């Protein structure tokens, strides 16, 4: 077994950026992301990483600089949270449409108002339609590994799309945990630096960011749609090779617990860990967890495979879409996937842990009990709206 070192989630991400020998880092500080880029700046100042750190005046500029730098063929990293991600929204579409393999880490945090620096998935979910490959870790080791996987996937000529990795603010970013650090040598062997995309080169000039009128625009959207869909194949190959090389195995989803469980919870991020702890502690053979790691492209096949035999499914959403017919974004993905595959399942949405409210083992117990109760009712009697867990009535 390799030596493990105690690192915070943010340091773990920064070490992965170092292992990837990134050329340009442009970012603007925001809690809980700040210490990722601080650590990277420290590496650069100490001469441990030969990169240009660009201090910009906003997140909009941070991603704009990343787009420009990536267009020159450099390996890019940026990171942000919450309002910062919201400010990047416009450029996120441009990065994915220009097919630039930028890697960004989202230290997930609630969106204002009221001002809240704590964790939920409002920011991550708000940018899930921007055409990026998106994944979310459950622990700090995974947050570290995801950055390495991200470059491998982003720069694959079959993909060439930006990749967002995510880790939960504070619950992971500021939590110390044992990490097996990937070295620069190992990292670059796994994801070698190769210019696989069109770049701005005076000897070989191209035009980027030109007008695409109605005669042209549509074709590029179709290309993008296909590329994001096909990135799943590249993800699967990458995790397979990652396991061979580093011994840690990941998949687009992770199933935990008894395969025949009647009650299956679907969750993302650190709360999945709390659910695992609940299942272990209570020896709940009747409860399973389906953790979604790869959110875009959404792993429909595996969602179907693992939910097919469940009696009832509870989706834990840590973001809210007011006024929508579904309430929580993850719930809508699950419902659409099941309905596309003609699976008529009882699925209940739970909104939990907004704005950093901890989702405790007690909350999980309440959710499981509610599902056990609803399991016996006919489908038509299921709640038509999401259930809010732990909110004061």
């Amino acid at each position, binding site marked *: 077994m390799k030596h493990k070192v105690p690192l915070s989630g943010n340091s773990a991400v920064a070490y992965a950026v170092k292992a990837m020998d990134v050329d340009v880092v442009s970012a603007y500080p925001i809690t809980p992301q700040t210490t990722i880029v601080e650590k990277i700046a420290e590496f650069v100042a100490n001469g441990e990483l030969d990169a240009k750190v660009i201090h910009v005046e906003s997140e909009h500029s941070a991603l704009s600089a990343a787009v420009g730098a990536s267009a020159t063929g450099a390996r890019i990293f940026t990171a942000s949270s919450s309002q910062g991600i919201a400010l990047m929204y416009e450029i996120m579409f441009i990065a994915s*449409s220009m097919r630039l393999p930028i890697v960004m880490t989202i230290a997930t945090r609630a969106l204002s108002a009221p001002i809240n620096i704590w964790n939920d998935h409002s920011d991550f979910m708000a940018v899930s339609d921007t055409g990026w490959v998106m994944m979310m870790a459950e622990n700090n080791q995974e947050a570290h590994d995801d950055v390495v996987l991200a470059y491998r996937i982003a720069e694959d000529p079959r993909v*060439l799309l930006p990749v967002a990795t995510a880790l939960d603010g504070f619950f992971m970013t500021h939590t110390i945990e044992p990490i097996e650090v990937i070295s620069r040598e190992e990292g670059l062997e796994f994801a070698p630096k190769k210019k696989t*995309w*069109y770049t701005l080169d005076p000897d070989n000039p*191209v*035009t980027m960011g*030109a007008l695409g009128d109605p005669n042209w625009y549509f*074709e590029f959207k179709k290309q993008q749609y296909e590329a994001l869909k096909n990135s799943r194949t590249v993800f699967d190959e990458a995790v397979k090779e990652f396991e061979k090389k580093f011994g840690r195995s990941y998949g687009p989803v992770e199933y935990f617990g008894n395969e025949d469980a009647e009650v299956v919870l679907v969750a993302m991020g650190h709360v999945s860990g709390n659910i695992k702890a609940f299942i272990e502690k209570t020896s709940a053979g009747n409860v399973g967890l389906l953790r979604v790691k790869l959110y875009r492209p959404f792993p429909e096949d595996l969602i179907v495979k693992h939910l097919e035999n469940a009696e009832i499914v509870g989706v834990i959403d840590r973001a809210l879409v007011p006024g929508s017919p579904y309430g929580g974004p993850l719930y809508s993905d699950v419902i659409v996937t099941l309905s596309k595959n003609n699976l008529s399942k009882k699925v209940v949405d739970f909104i939990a842990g907004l704005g950093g409210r901890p989702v405790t083992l007690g909350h999980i117990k309440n959710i499981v009990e509610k599902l056990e109760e609803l399991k016996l009712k006919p489908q038509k009697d299921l709640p038509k709206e999401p259930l809010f867990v732990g909110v004061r009535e």
Partner: protein
Amino acid sequence: MSKSLPSWRELPIGAVILQPGSTVRYKTHEWRTLRPVINQDKCIRCRLCWAYCPEGTILELDKPYTTKAGKVYNITYEVNYDYCKGCGVCAYECPVKAIEMVPEVR
């Protein structure tokens, strides 16, 4: 839908244009309703129209010209009518009003 244009499978990704200088093929003269006409006798060769033109369509040519008053110039300014959009900034800026915007007749 235009049949002659390439399918999404054939296009370079990310809307990148691979041939340099491809805008030369896009002649913008059709946008013009007024065309600038330079009066070579009035023109004092100050170069201001050349400097102001947003499209670089004022040409500075090594073509000697003798005005009616007998003044000899070594250069002549002419307009590249393939790309001039007829915005009129040259006529507006000309200090001696040597450029006239005349209606385009096609």
